[in-house]
């Protein structure tokens, strides 16, 4: 029997699900291997009976938390799809302020009573990655995901293999492409600490890596510190310099300090 796959989305741009549609002809082959039972963005049918749940988006409110827990209970395998599910997305930056301050900035002209925590749609909004709420079995990182990696992960799962997610820095792929190192042209790139697998797409097109796939598990501190020193930076400085996608790590550090 074909495995039943369901897609779900929370706070996100739905761009990662779009990458699946962007597989074009390949998707026609992929859906022959599985039974897609729910995919709200493209199909009307829906079933609560599924084996693999693929979840995009960050978790914002208690109502979202409940929905995610229900999905976790039903799914044998839960996959976090993209940077919002994996790291909390760019919107994780909002956690620098209290939810009250965020609401004031965005809905300043509203009646405060309408948007307070008694309204479930507005209840304590704070962005969290999926694994801050439930157990996540696999992560497909990136903003957006690499569509070819998605196909590789799905095929690995269907053939009982461990999905191949690289744990080396973006620099590896960037060197392979023989790009000019952005440090040498005066830019600060997250490549040395960011997880590869994106084919170094941003540096290839002249832009600094923003670490949308998070950090590697163990940045090679010694070697990288030596290289970065040459450009007058410490490893810590570079890890704190760009926080577009990696505020999660800083937040975790702050939380840790609070608990100490």
């Amino acid at each position, binding site marked *: 029997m074909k495995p039943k796959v369901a897609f779900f989305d929370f706070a996100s741009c739905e761009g*990662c699900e*779009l990458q699946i549609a962007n597989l074009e002809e390949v998707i026609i082959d992929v859906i022959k291997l599985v039974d897609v039972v729910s995919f*709200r963005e493209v*199909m009307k049918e829906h079933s609560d009976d599924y084996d693999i749940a693929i979840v995009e988006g960050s978790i914002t409110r208690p109502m979202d938390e409940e929905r995610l827990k229900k999905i976790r209970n039903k799914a044998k395998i839960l996959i976090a799809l993209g940077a919002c599910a994996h790291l909390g997305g760019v*919107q994780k*930056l909002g956690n620098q302020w209290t939810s009250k*301050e965020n609401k004031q900035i*965005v809905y300043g002209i509203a009646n405060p009573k309408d948007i307070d925590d008694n309204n479930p749609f507005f209840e304590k909004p704070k962005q969290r990655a999926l694994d801050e709420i439930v157990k996540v079995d696999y992560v497909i990182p990136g903003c957006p995901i690499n569509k070819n990696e998605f196909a590789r992960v799905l095929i690995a799962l269907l053939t009982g293999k461990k999905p191949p997610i690289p744990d080396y820095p973006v620099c590896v792929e960037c060197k392979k492409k023989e790009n000019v190192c952005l440090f040498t042209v005066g830019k600060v790139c997250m490549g040395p600490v960011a997880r590869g697998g994106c084919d170094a*797409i941003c540096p290839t097109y002249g832009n600094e890596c923003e670490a949308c796939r998070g950090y590697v598990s163990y940045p090679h501190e010694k070697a990288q510190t030596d290289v970065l020193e040459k450009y007058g930076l410490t490893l810590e400085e570079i890890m704190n310099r760009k926080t577009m996608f990696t505020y999660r790590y800083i937040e975790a550090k702050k939380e840790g300090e609070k608990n100490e």
Partner: protein
Amino acid sequence: MSDINVHVEHLTRVEGHGNIILNAKNGKIEKIRWQVSEAPRFFESFVRGRPYHEMSHITSRICGICSIGHALASLKATEAAMGIKISEQTGILRRLATHGENLQSHILHVGYLVAPDLLGVGSVFPLIKTHPEAVLKIVKLHKMANEMSDLICGRTTHPINLIPGGFSYIPSEKQFKQLKQRLADSVETTNDVAEIVLAHAGKLPKFTRETEYIALTSNDEYALYDGDIGSTDSGKHPVKDYQSITNEFVVPQSTAKYTKHKRDSYMVGALARFNLNSKKLCPLAKKWVDKFGLKPISYNPFMNNVAQLVEFVHSIEDSINLIDKILGNGLDRYERPKFTVKAGHGVGALDVPRGILFHDYTYNDKGICTKANCIIPTNQNHNNIQKDMEAFAPTLLNKPEKEIELNLEMLVRAYDPCISCSTHYLRVKFI
């Protein structure tokens, strides 16, 4: 007449989360509501403190489908704030980027999201078996549009090459020539797909409701990348006055930020652009306008689907013209922007697949954003969707519940709503 209770939670085949509620008793509507339950992400709050060069990369994440449009509106706001001028080449390349996005977004909507309604199925998947040739043609066009966007922007979803003042990477002359050939080759496939839609266009409800249409408008071109704000009610307005057009306001009994201009609501998107700018369409697009019998001003929101198809044809033709222009001028692959970072305030407007989009930023002298406001097309349409529903639902009450539900769903889908885009959480309350 029996009681009717329609409750569509999390409407499918749209981007984001929205609900439709209709309750009727003895042939009288008690409640009709278009409700949006998308989680808020607070973009305008958390971009405060971010440097100018991150802004377009962050705000492109508002929407996965129209990320190129968000990036460009963002860059235009930054450039307006800092007085950065762009070259003619950058202007042409950005127009190509806009066409690439329009092509991919429109074919995705018409081909993958709307066609199942016209053919009486729940999604594009069963069509792979029943209509394989049509699906493959749609896939081919979608792929061409995505690869065009990849070429110009580095990546279709969350573009890389688009930076303040210009481009960080520009494709080669050979790649532009290949793109031109692909665009020319796709005309036949486009005509085939348009014929299929035309054959089923009779299924689009013949519902009309007079409303105001707002879109960018220009004397020089069918406005997408640049222009003044145009209204079918009040004529032209400068972009800097956008707040006097959108008039965001709060209804006392709702947290929703509505927009309205001359009437209770207005519509933005392909139909609004067509209604204002149809004379500027390219010849083949005009041919399809005639075939579909579309005439400005069309007050049928379902014709937005047809207007998207017409714009698809236009974007192919105009892209070919733009490539000729850029190659004729002599391509400068290594042109890179030069400017000085300074404090300022600026507004950028663009007409993206779902309608007119505004980004408004304030920067300090270090180029750090201190204040931001984004007004998204779908936000401007929600109020019009609600008003359309109120007018459309009474005409449906003698139909079976399933058919009422389908008709209301088709109405919302016709707007091609992009609910995640709504940076302001919006709740439409029945008053």
